[in-house]
């Protein structure tokens, strides 16, 4: 399993937990689920994407045009097992 050179804040852990338990969703849905403001959410997701915790990509069917999903490594990191959901 990949080791992350990134210390997660409580809010970031909350985002990862939400994505691990609820599956892929739009950033706006994650923001609404976690009570994080949309501007902060975008910055946070970009940082987490660079660190390899999430995949952030365009999705024309999403109301805000984006899709975010937790990576397998991050899921293992969150669950304490390698990739198991």
């Amino acid at each position: 399993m990949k080791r992350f050179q990134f210390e997660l804040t409580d809010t970031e852990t909350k985002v990862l937990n939400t994505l691990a338990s609820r599956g892929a969703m739009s950033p706006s849905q994650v923001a609404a689920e976690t009570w994080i403001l949309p501007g902060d959410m975008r910055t946070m997701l970009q940082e987490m994407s660079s660190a390899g915790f999430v995949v952030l990509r365009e999705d024309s069917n999403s109301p805000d045009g984006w899709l975010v999903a937790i990576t397998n490594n991050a899921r293992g990191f969150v669950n304490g097992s390698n990739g198991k959901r």
Partner: protein
Amino acid sequence: MTENIAPTSASIGAKILLLLVILLSFVVVVLLVWPVGPAAPTWMGPFQGDLRHFTAVLAPFLVIGFVGGLIGVAELVSTFKTYPREALLTRWAWVLIFANVFAAIAALLILRATTSPMSFLMEFLIVAFGFQGIIRTRFVLAKQVGSDKDGEVAVNLGWLYDQFSNLARRQIDLELMNNRRTAVTRLLQYYPTLAELYDIALYTITARETLTSEEEQEKLDALEKLIDPKAPEHFAKTSIALMILENGGQSYVNLLLDQAMNQPDTAVLATAAAPPARQDTLIRRLVEEYDLDGLVALTNQLTDDEATQNYVREAAKPNPAISQAEQKATIAHFLIQQIGADTLNRVMDTASS
């Protein structure tokens, strides 16, 4: 769901099975159940004798034919590892299986016609293993050092079977290709968003009982590569739909499509994580019909909860780093969670009428 892969092939198999069961029942009834006594008709004794003789003659051919059929099935299952059931349901699969059955029976006939009588066990070993092995083997008599097949002197005793087998496999593959294309197109039609497809694929992989941890991890990694931001959206969706089909099989895809068709209001049932389709429609309505100030006013109208009002007010503040659509979509999701989709739908319907 009305689609059926190959109804003709399946019904032919069922008819043949039924015919065999009837024949076997007839033999059992006549030989074992029907008593030969003073009350029995005079023709019963000779008839039972003839039937016993006929059964004794026929049985080796049935056994050899059955083994030939089994080898044909095994050949198909090992060739189409991803879709064994679907491959066996195609028309050409039955052609190949019956070709194996008839070839085995013909081999036994030829063996009996050309050699001196031997025990059935010997005949069985020669036909079931020797013959089947020979028609699938290519004997290389001489091979040029360092060359590939071009430099070989070889005898392929099963050349004819090879040609026929290749033709059958190609036809089965084409038939499966059509079915796969149809299944993928329908999945994309009923599960149009990348998030839905991704979640279903993830669930399909993790729910498989027979995968080892390494295989599961390999498949999850492959899935993650498919949603890579560099991959075009349509390619990502099509590939993920194909992955669902490959991992779940045709029956599972049929189940997903059945659910989506029969319960359009709650299209995604494969995973509890995905939102109902009607929520997407509501979010789109909120995003399209309200501006940011309108959403703040709507929130204040629908709830007195200060925390909710504050969140929406903050989320609606102008922010050059993100688009208004993202702000409105966040507020729309938030309102559905805090106030409920039914209330919002009712309010919007009243406002528009």
